């Protein structure tokens, strides 16, 4: 151990029933560095972080902070030691205001009483200066999107950190510009001698920001590397444990398979205050992308199609049949599937097992009196666990015990299992590791080849460009344009978005 080591873990082991999540892992964070923790879904990254911050009790090992032994028994204690953390799932209280979430436990006080005015002011300044977001900080957190919640959590952690900052997939729901803001903040903290642990499945981000990388695989330490001496392929090879060569993205689209017939057609569908009129159609076997920035109306559009939000206006036609008022149950009957963006509140049922979670949509499609035989359930579950490489000791494990990325895969399986004619996927690869991401992309293309229509939403424009036959671009809740075939590229999408400012304004006039 030397003088610039900040947080050092030695020989950490942690087991859960049926899983050895960490075995004899060493980790060392130095002062003034950004250190990425890499590994596949379920490799043990979040577990290591939770052990370091006292949320989970380690079975074995020691932790040193600035060369002195510590053993935090709670987040409270870790916080006192100067370690602040953003955990993988946003962990704030939705019933409190944004400002309070940031300052709870260290509220500004005047004469011994909480000074609310000052708290609101400070929160506004913090969010504006650090992350360039301007929102009403008095409103409850529940009224904001996942992205805002994630940024609130980041702002809080950044503001409280004094020695060590830990960020477990903080960027999973953020757009490029927000990520850049975060990186600026991180670099600034680094220059002040802080140590930062960063987890992300976006390789670009990891290579851009980190000085050093520690790789875990199956709970084992594979090694610690200098980022500058590592290539992408080398890194991924270490993560998955076999030779990896990044496939070229050109193996895409079988435009020939797209039928001439529309599966779904929408004219002027809108919901006041949420989404302005959308016009779109999806052919059988077509992959249609929705692209846009945060808050551009991607998710809102998907929710209108699936009937989660009722539209005030417009027509929706599915296979030549006009649907008057869409609702999720009807949507499932008509062969639609919707894989939601926010797995924690709209997706998983934590108390149920993996198999049960996978069956939910299929059961509802078949009707509750048409019970799916256990044998069939097991067959389906087995299939998807294998197909998507879901890491679990058993299909009867509670889904809440899975790692974040693996939960996402279960939700995806839930909808794949219904054999939908149109699958709406809202950020299907959020938090999923690179290997599985490509698996999912391949799966999408295969499904399309079989004649399934797909509506694909992703903040990762590379992914949109790679998978889609056609892309509709949104901005500020307006549909502003469309790209097709060869024209689809990240550059063109971004151009269209920035040109869209004019379109939006002209509508306003």
């Amino acid at each position, binding site marked *: 151990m030397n003088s610039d080591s900040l947080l050092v873990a030695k020989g950490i082991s942690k087991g859960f029933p049926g899983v050895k999540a960490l075995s004899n892992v060493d980790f060392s964070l130095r002062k003034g560095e950004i250190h990425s923790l890499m590994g596949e879904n379920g490799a043990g990254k979040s577990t290591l972080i939770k052990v370091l911050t006292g949320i989970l009790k380690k079975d074995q090992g020691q932790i040193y902070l600035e060369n002195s032994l510590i053993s935090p028994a709670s987040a409270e204690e870790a916080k006192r030691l100067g370690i602040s953390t953003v955990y993988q799932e946003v962990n704030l*209280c939705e*019933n409190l205001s944004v400002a309070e979430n940031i300052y709870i436990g260290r509220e500004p006080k005047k004469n011994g009483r909480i000074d609310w005015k000052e708290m609101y002011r400070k929160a506004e300044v913090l969010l504006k200066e650090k992350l360039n977001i301007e929102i009403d900080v008095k409103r409850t957190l529940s009224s*904001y999107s996942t992205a805002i919640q994630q940024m609130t959590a980041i702002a809080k952690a950044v503001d409280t950190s004094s020695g060590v900052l830990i960020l477990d997939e903080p960027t999973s729901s953020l757009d490029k*510009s927000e990520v850049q803001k975060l990186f600026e903040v991180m670099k600034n903290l680094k220059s002040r001698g802080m140590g930062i642990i960063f987890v992300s499945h976006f390789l670009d981000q990891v290579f851009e920001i980190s000085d050093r990388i520690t790789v875990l695989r199956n709970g084992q330490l594979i090694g610690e590397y200098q980022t500058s001496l590592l290539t992408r392929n080398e890194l991924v090879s270490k993560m998955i444990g076999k030779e990896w060569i990044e496939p070229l993205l050109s193996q895409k689209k079988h435009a020939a398979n797209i039928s001439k017939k529309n599966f779904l057609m929408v004219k002027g569908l809108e919901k006041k*205050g*949420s989404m302005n009129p959308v016009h779109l159609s999806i052919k059988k076997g077509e992959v249609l992308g929705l692209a846009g920035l945060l808050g551009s109306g991607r998710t809102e559009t998907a929710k209108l199609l699936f009937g989660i939000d009722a539209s005030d206006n417009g027509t929706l036609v599915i296979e030549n049949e006009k649907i008057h008022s869409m609702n999720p149950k009807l949507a499932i009957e008509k062969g639609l599937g919707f894989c939601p963006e926010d797995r924690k509140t709209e997706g998983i049922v934590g108390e149920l097992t993996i198999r049960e979670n996978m069956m939910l949509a299929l059961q509802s499609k078949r009707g509750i009196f048409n019970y799916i035989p256990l044998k069939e359930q097991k067959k389906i579950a087995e299939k998807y666990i294998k197909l998507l490489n879901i890491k679990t000791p058993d299909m009867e494990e509670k889904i809440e015990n899975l790692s974040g990325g693996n939960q996402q895969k279960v939700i995806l399986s839930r909808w794949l299992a219904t054999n939908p004619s149109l699958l709406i996927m809202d950020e299907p690869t959020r938090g999923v590791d690179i290997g599985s991401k490509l698996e999912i992309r391949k799966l999408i293309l295969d499904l399309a080849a079989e004649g399934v229509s797909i509506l694909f939403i992703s903040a990762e424009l590379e992914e949109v460009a790679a998978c889609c036959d056609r892309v509709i671009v949104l901005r500020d809740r307006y549909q502003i344009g469309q790209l097709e075939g060869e024209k689809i590229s990240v550059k063109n999408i971004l151009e269209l978005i*920035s040109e869209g*400012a004019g379109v939006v304004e002209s509508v306003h006039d």
Partner: protein
Amino acid sequence: MKKISHRINENNIIIIATLFLIVLLYGYGSLSFTGFLSMQVFLNLFIDNAYLIIIATGMAFVIITGGIDLSVASFVAFVSIITASLLEHGLHAYLVILLTLLLGIIFGAGQGYLIFRFQLHPWIVTLAGMFLARGLCYLISTESVEITDNTFMFLSDYKLYVMGENYISIGVVLSIIFVAAAIYLSKYTSFGRYVYAVGGNVSSARLMGLPVGKTTIMVYTLSGFSSALGGFVFTVYMQSGYALHLMGMEMDAIAACVIGGILLTGGAGYLIGPVLGVLSMGMIQTIIMFQGTLSSWWTKIVVGFLLFLFILLQRLIVIRRGKKRMHSIADLHTDSASTKQHASIS
């Protein structure tokens, strides 16, 4: 109009509904019965319910953390009987009061400790506490014990005159101070805010590094203290100790909280709520008293009906809240400048 609708939001809609209910009941009573409009009738509402105001307010903290305290009524009976018998044995009145308050704190802290330390369900622990306290009452005496202590007689007869002929009791003064302190506690101290955080999402509160254990123990301690204080006020009011006092009053306290807009799921509600809940229940009782022919059980029926209505209202709010995860445009600052930046990054 816009301003008003802006002020009425889902957080205070129940409070406003309750206020409206009180005004409605008061209006109905004043129009229907002569003598109802008198100031003293109104003040009697406070005098008769001072103990309940204190207890419901203490309980509100517990409910906001997502818990419940079923032991409060039995503990009041326990306080009444232990006070009566200690006074009978010649102990000094102030010492007795101090002792019972201390007992309340210890009793509440004990329950809180069990709930937190062993992750027991508050229903179970406080149900046990309820039987225990009631059982202890019988151990001390099965008969009603009259209080003849001078200090207690004095406290009981003391009338604080407000606005001419009208008066309030010591109990009312205590309850007002208690409620004011509770409101302050909930809004202006860290402890108060932890209570809301724990009720909103315990695991998040833990991950945020908040003292979840301490907060849990503290709210039950507070509830224990408030039932002891309420017990004292009640004992002074009744001038007797009896094991059978206030059977089932814990439910009145819970009902007052619900009607006052404290969400049973935890995490929401204002501390002024329980008072309003108690007042509306008391108002119903007064009306039925004035009416004269109806049996007092009608109070229960009406309160039951009201509860049903308010729970429904709460449910609607929770459902609406779930739907309202709107991603409004104001969410994000996506002006054209930031878009250009996007383009240049990639």
